[in-house]
C-alpha cells in the first residue's frame, strides 16, 4: 500500500497545461520514500489500480477557468459520469473505478493550478510558474500531514 500517490497530468507541449506535471516532476526530485509520483498526459482507467492501492491520492492539474488566479485545493469524491469514461478520465471516475474494481478508495484531493497560456510550444506562463511553486508547498504539507488524515476542509486560496 502506497501512503501517498500524487498524479500530475496534462500535455507537456501545450504551455500551462503542463503545470500539473511540472509540479509533480519537481516534487519527484525530493525522492520521498513514502510518496509515489506519476506524471501522465491524461488520466486513463488503468490508473485505478494505483489509486486503489494508495491511502491518499492527490490529483494535480491546470484549471481551464480563466478566472482562477491561484492554486485551489478541494477534497473529491468518487463520481460516475453519464456516457461513461473514455480515453480521458476524470479524477472522480478513477476513484469510482477503484471502488468498483478493487473494493477500496483512498481519501482524495484535487489540486488545480492557474493557467492562461495553452498554445502549442509555449513555456509555462509566469502565472503558472507561481502556481507550481505554491502547489509544491501544498503537496509537501499534504504529504506531511499524516497518511490517515481525511480531506475534510477544502482550502481555497
Amino acid at each position, binding site marked *: 500500500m502506497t501512503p501517498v500517490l500524487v498524479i500530475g497530468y496534462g500535455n507537456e*507541449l501545450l504551455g500551462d497545461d503542463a503545470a500539473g506535471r511540472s509540479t509533480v516532476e519537481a516534487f519527484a526530485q525530493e525522492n520521498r520514500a513514502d510518496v509515489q509520483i506519476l506524471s501522465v498526459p491524461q488520466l486513463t482507467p488503468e490508473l485505478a489500480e494505483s489509486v486503489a492501492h494508495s491511502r491518499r491520492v492527490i490529483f494535480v492539474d491546470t484549471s481551464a477557468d480563466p478566472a482562477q488566479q491561484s492554486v485551489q485545493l478541494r477534497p473529491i469524491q468518487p463520481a460516475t459520469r*453519464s456516457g*461513461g469514461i473514455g480515453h480521458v478520465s476524470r479524477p472522480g471516475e478513477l476513484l469510482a473505478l477503484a471502488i468498483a474494481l478493487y473494493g477500496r478508495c483512498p481519501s482524495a484531493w484535487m489540486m488545480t493550478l492557474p493557467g492562461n497560456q495553452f498554445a502549442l510550444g509555449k513555456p509555462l506562463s509566469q502565472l503558472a510558474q507561481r502556481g507550481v511553486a505554491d502547489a509544491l508547498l501544498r503537496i509537501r504539507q499534504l504529504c506531511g500531514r499524516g497518511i490517515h488524515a481525511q480531506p475534510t476542509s477544502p482550502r481555497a486560496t
Partner: protein
Amino acid sequence: MARRILIDPVTRIEGHAKITIHQDESGNVTDARFHVVEFRGFETFCEGRPLWEMPSITPRICGICPVSHLLASAKACDAILSVRIPAAAEQLRRLMNLAQIIQSHALSFFHLSAPDFLIGWDAPAATRNVFTLIQKQPDLARGGIRLRQFGQEIIELLGGRKIHPAWAVPGGVRQSLTEPGRDRIKSCLPEAMDTARAALQLFRDLLQSHERELQVFGRFPSLFLGLANEAGLWEHYDGFLRFVDAGGNVLADEIEVRRYREFIGEAVQTDSYLKSPYYKPLGFPQGIYRVGPLARLNVCRTMGTPLADEELDRFRSYGQGAVTSSFLYHYARLIEILACLELIQDMIDRPALLSPHLRADAGINQLHGVGASEAPRGTLFHDYQVNELGLIQKINLIIATGQNNLAMNRTVAQIAKHYIQGNSIPEPMLNRVEAGIRAFDPCLSCSTHADGTLALHVTLVAADGTVLDTVTRD
C-alpha cells in the same frame, strides 16, 4: 425550414469534436459532418528542430497512442540515415507495437464501446457506462482492464515508462528486453489470451442480435488501406501499402511507403481542422478509404496465427469480398488482439529480444524520409525533410483518424437517416451517432486536457443560423 443538428462534443472519444446533422425542409437527414478541433500547428512547431529529437517530441502529440508516433517517427529517421536497423531492433519494435495495439484496442472495446452493446443502446446514459458493465459482467470488465495493463506493462518493460518512452531512436532502439521482463510477459500471456477469447465469443453472440447495427452503422462501399507484406500476412510495422476495394479486389499494391503522395491526396475542408485524405486516382471525395482494424483485415490474406485465422474466416462471412460494415471494427479489433497475443507468444523466446546489438549509427544521408507503421487506429505516416545539418525543414503527418474522416461522416449520416425522423432529437439516436463514431475509435488527442472541459452539447441550428434548441449532457 431546413436545419442543422449539432452534437458537440462527442463523449468518450479523445479530444473534442462536434457533429452537424443537416436536415432538409421536410425533416429528412441529408448529410452529416464530423468537425474536429485537433492539435493543429504541430507540423510548424517541429520545423527547425534536430531530426534526432523527433522520436521523442512526436509521441507527445498523444497520450493514447504515443508508441505509434514513436515508431513512425523512428522509421522516417531511419530512412534519412539510410540505415537498415539491426534485426533485434526490428523485432523489439514489433513487440512494442503489438503491445500498443493490445492496450489501445482493450481500452476501445472494454471501456468505451462494450457498454453500448452489453448494457443496451436505449439504456439511460447514466447507466450506460463501464461502472454498470462492471456490475453486470465483472469478469469481463476486470479482464479488459488487465489486458490493457498487460499491453502497457510490455511497453514499460521495453521503454522504461508506459507513456512517451524515448526508446526507439534513429537507427534502432535503446535497450533490449531483460530476462525477467521476458518471463513476466510469458507469465501474463495465458490470462490475456483467455480474456481475448472470451470477448470474441461474447461479441460473436452479440452479433446475432445486432443485425440492425450491422446494416446501418457505416455499411457502405469504400476502399481500404493498410500495410501489407509479400507473404500476405497481417502486417503492423513494415512492408508496403495496399489498397483494396469493397469487393476485396486489390486496386494498388506493393507501393513503397515513400511514394504515398502519389496515391494519397489530402483535402482540406473549411469546417474541420482534420484533413481528409483520399485515394488520389479516384479523386475527392470518390476516393474515400478506411484504415484501421477493419481495413487491415480486408487487406491481408491471413492473420498468420492459427486462432486469429479461425476468427478471420468467421469475420469474412460478414462480407462479400471485403467486410464493409463499420460496426465490425469492434470484431476486427478483438481479432487483432488475439493475433497480437499469438505473435507475442511466438516471438517471446527468441534470443534476439535479449540482444545487445540494437542500433545502427549513421549521419544524414538523405534529405527526405518517410516512415509508416500501423497505429491501432490505422496507418500512420511521418514524412520529414531535413537540411544537411539534420534540421527539420518540413514535416507532414497523416494520422489514422484523419484518413477515416470521410468514412466517419458517411457513418454518422447513415445512422442519422435511419434514426432521426421529424424535429426531435431522441436520446437513443444520440447514443447511436456517438457509437457510430466510436466504432472508429478516433483519437483526436491533442486538445488541452485541463480540468473540467468535457460535456456534450446538442444544438439545433436553422439554415439561417438561428439556434433552435440546445441540450447539454454532462
